[in-house]
């Protein structure tokens, strides 16, 4: 098990997921492929700077107004970053599909991201994190963190940080 966990505010992660879901749903309903592209870009930037892409919504508006309270848990940030990067890749492929006229494939991939983000937001299961921990168990280089003690790989950790 990994012994180098840090404090991760899961409210930031949930805000990120909720924003992704809302933007992609609006993009689908109004048939705005550019909104998928924008979401993918923010997620890519977030992965590069090692933060949830839409964290600014939480830090600038939701947290200062006390609309969303922090939910700090002992967790590994790396799997969440990997999950965001994976989502960004899927949305990039979705964007390419939508631009090249493969609308069904493009929107299906967008819905895949909506489904996985919803799974994480509403059930607390991060599929991308589960893949990360699975790769860790296979000892794939670059996937050095194992799931927090007592937590099923991919599920939200049980214990809060004191």
């Amino acid at each position, binding site marked *: 098990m990994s012994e180098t966990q840090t404090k991760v505010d899961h409210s930031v992660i949930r805000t990120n997921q909720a924003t992704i879901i809302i933007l992609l*749903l609006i993009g*689908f*309903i*109004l*048939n705005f492929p550019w909104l998928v592209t924008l979401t993918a870009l923010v997620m890519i930037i977030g992965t590069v700077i090692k933060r949830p892409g839409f964290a600014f919504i939480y830090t600038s508006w939701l947290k200062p107004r006390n609309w969303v309270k922090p939910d700090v848990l002992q967790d590994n940030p790396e799997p969440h970053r990997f999950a965001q990067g994976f989502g960004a890749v899927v949305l990039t492929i979705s964007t390419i599909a939508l631009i090249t006229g493969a609308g069904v494939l493009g929107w299906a991939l967008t*819905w895949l991201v909506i*489904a996985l983000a*919803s799974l994480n937001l509403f*059930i*607390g*299961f991060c599929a991308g994190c589960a893949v990360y921990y699975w790769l860790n168990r296979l000892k794939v280089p670059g996937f050095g963190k194992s799931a927090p003690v*007592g*937590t*099923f790989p991919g*599920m*939200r950790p*049980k*214990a*809060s940080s*004191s």
Partner: protein
Amino acid sequence: MTPAWLIRTSLALAIIASGWLVFKLVTYLSLNRVRKIAHRLENYQPGKAAIVYFTTPDCLACKAAQHPALVRLQSLLGDQLQVIEINAYEDPDMAKDWGVLSVPTTFILDSKGAPRQVNYGVTPAEKLYDQLRQTQPQAI
């Protein structure tokens, strides 16, 4: 002619509803599986509704919210309700058999010991009370 946005909204709602149905199906199958092993539960007294509460000592949400909610419910319902607390660390096999992946997780059992509802995460006392009433309308 129907506007495109309306068709796409309907499609989105249909997909969301399908996802919700899949979730409900998974929950139903999970409860069905637990139904076959629930009789092995120690400390269960037949004839009473029960809440099986999975927790761990380091679960702050359990201490701060779930446990007080259960204490409130127990004081309200008295002998009509039994709360069976299971430490998932001490009894990992049971947690696995019951499909518990995170804590707190609560199961509502009817008076015959059959699991009727499952809640993942902190569940308010009011919701648990409603679930118990649905399970045992004549008793609660």
